[in-house]
């Protein structure tokens, strides 16, 4: 008697959102990029080796010696107060006038995204994202089952005329947009920076349509050149200070291993967020927060950011130069003034997902573009992270990629 093999006995119990999670060959291929012999432009891994480990050891020892009881104990859900004063100082460097009362600490910026989605999104609600946009945010949002409306970006960031049109359309249908999500500085994945005029326009649209902007700013301090653009939060503070929820993180200016991010938002939202932190993980690691406090109490941290900027800008330069020298006509890329990523566009007939296997066989990895779109576009696009590999490897990797792409174009033309 034949029987059906049930590999998962609990299929009937899972929530519907689990249907959105599955094995993917792209994810499996990308896991190969962790191998040391692969030049990886895939993950946006900060260069933590540039930190002074001896100093870090001292901070850790001090955290234990001076404040062991606090470091090893549960902390308050809104974050370790002394650290919050430091985070407010960090924000001031970016011209955002906030104080510790305006901040809730989260387990990385990623938790902030998840908890904000949790407190704002009911299934079927409308949210707006820039497109391409940060996959980690898209995935966090998706698990709360919203309708995601994508607005395209160009080299000046999210196209506000299209945003306006969409907001109008939705309002005509009596649909309230819950929030608009953007990474305005050196965006992940595009590397583009939202222009000042568009920031102003976005804010005025948010006010007009009575909605929120989630401004995610992990890379703002990693500017290699050009004049900083005021954050949307800064612009909002100068008016009603009602419409912007600001997220940042220590992952890029310190180290992601500590998992510290924060949110600065209107107080009623912070209250809800604090409750959400409480139910998610009670509090962000007290030990991590205490060490981060030590780190940001030492003025040296600013020098470390300067070091980071030197490292990353040299890496961006070599990536852009090698792209210019070797990539075939028909390919184009963004020229970010900071951050971690270059956004690559290939001729339309090429599919970066299909090229990935070939690239990995030749020991180079990148992330295909379609994962950064909520609507499966971006098949001829890709994200190249320049933050994680040294300049020699970047040059070598881009040359390899260039050869693969030239061969693909030749192969493709043989079918014409």
């Amino acid at each position, binding site marked *: 008697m034949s029987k*059906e*093999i049930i590999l998962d006995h609990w299929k009937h119990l899972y929530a519907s959102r689990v249907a959105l999670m599955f094995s993917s060959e792209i994810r499996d291929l990308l896991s190969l990029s962790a191998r040391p012999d692969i030049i990886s432009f895939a993950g946006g891994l900060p260069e933590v080796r540039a930190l002074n480990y001896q100093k870090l050891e001292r901070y850790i020892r001090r955290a234990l010696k001076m404040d062991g009881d606090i470091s090893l104990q549960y902390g308050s859900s809104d974050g370790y107060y002394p650290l919050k004063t430091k985070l407010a100082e960090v924000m001031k460097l970016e011209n955002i006038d906030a104080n510790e009362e305006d901040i809730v600490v989260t387990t990385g910026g990623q938790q902030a995204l998840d908890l904000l989605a949790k407190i704002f999104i009911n299934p079927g609600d409308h949210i707006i994202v820039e497109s391409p946009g940060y996959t980690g945010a898209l995935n966090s949002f998706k698990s709360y089952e919203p309708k995601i409306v994508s607005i395209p970006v160009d080299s000046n960031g999210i196209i506000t005329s299209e945003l306006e049109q969409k907001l109008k359309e939705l309002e005509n249908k009596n649909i309230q947009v819950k929030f608009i999500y953007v990474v305005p500085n050196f965006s992940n994945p595009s590397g583009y920076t939202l222009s000042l005029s568009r920031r102003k326009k976005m804010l005025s649209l948010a006010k007009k349509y009575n909605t929120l902007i989630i401004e995610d700013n992990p890379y703002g301090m990693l500017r290699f050149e050009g004049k900083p653009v005021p954050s949307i939060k800064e612009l909002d503070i100068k008016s009603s200070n009602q419409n912007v929820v600001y997220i940042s993180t220590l992952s890029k200016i310190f180290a992601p291993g500590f998992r510290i991010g924060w949110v600065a938002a209107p107080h009623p939202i912070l209250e809800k967020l604090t409750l959400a932190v409480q139910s998610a993980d009670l509090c962000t690691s007290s030990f991590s927060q205490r060490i981060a406090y030590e780190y940001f109490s030492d003025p040296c941290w600013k020098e470390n950011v300067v070091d980071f900027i030197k490292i990353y800008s040299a890496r961006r330069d070599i990536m852009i130069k090698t792209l210019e020298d070797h990539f075939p006509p028909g390919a184009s890329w963004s020229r970010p003034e900071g951050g971690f990523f270059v956004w690559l566009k290939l001729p339309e007939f090429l599919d970066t997902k299909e090229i990935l296997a070939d690239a990995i066989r030749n020991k180079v990895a990148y992330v295909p573009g379609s994962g950064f779109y909520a609507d499966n576009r971006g098949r001829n696009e890709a994200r190249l992270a320049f933050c994680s590999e040294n300049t020699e490897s970047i040059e070598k990797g881009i040359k390899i990629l260039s050869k693969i792409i030239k061969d693909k174009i030749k*192969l493709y033309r043989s079918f014409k």
Partner: protein
Amino acid sequence: MKKNIAVLMGGRSLEREISLKSGHRVYGALKKLGYSVTKLDIDESIVDNLTSEKIDLAYIALHGKDGEDGTIQEILELLNIPYTGPGVYSNILSFDKIISKQILVSHNIPTPPFYFLNESSFMELGASKLLPLVTENLGLPLVVKPSAQGSALGVKIVKKQEDIPDAIISALGYSKKVIIEKFIYGTELAISIIGKDNPQILPVVEIVPEKDFFDFESRYSPGKTNYFVPARLPQSLTKKVKETAAHVHDVLKCSKLSRVDIILDKKEKIPYVLELNTSPGMTDTSLLPMAAEEAGISFEELVEKIIKLSLEDD
């Protein structure tokens, strides 16, 4: 004295992740069985790792390049370390689907009609002009796949003539040769064979993917595919399918272990052989452990059986 077994896993293949899953599971079973076990990832230090201590047996939990193409088997032969699964020759024959299909044809074993073309034939010899002829001879839909790649990576079912080039370009990302094969409508079956002189043919597994074919996602996401063991076939057909699998196992010079993938044609009931795997998956959703369980062989017993077959060679 407890035998010292090295589980070879991971490696440079595109199926690395699957191999790690197989390897970890096999490692756990060997531990439970009381063997002294080490895990070895396949990289530039593999020869040093294999020679640094006495290894009584290498368990090959590798999939794809290096693990199923004869490479690691030849290294182990040179080092005189016994290993699980078939030998060098069999791995070479079965890894290249063009060679294995040619052998099947020469032994009158049914395999879907096919053509193979390599990258340079398109780039330098204008082979793309032959595609209408290929479709004329094989009909649509067609299956386009790389000649040497497992886990259905790079495999596409093409329903329209104009989609063939994209599918070929995609498959050529995985290997330099591509197979264009007639699509057979029917039931997907997997037949695992274990043993040497009188090998045991395990119960046939029937695969019913939710999608129109058993692709990567269907293979490794529990719940995306339904499996029936033994396959829901009349006895006579089960017998025919098993005989075909055993014949394939023989002509590709397999010994000890293989899994033959077959598609049973819906109308004619012809068992068309798709491929033979020399290192069948051992993950939670893999077909060999599933078939073994139906035969009353637990996962640990299966692993023990596989290693005993290779230790007997000593």
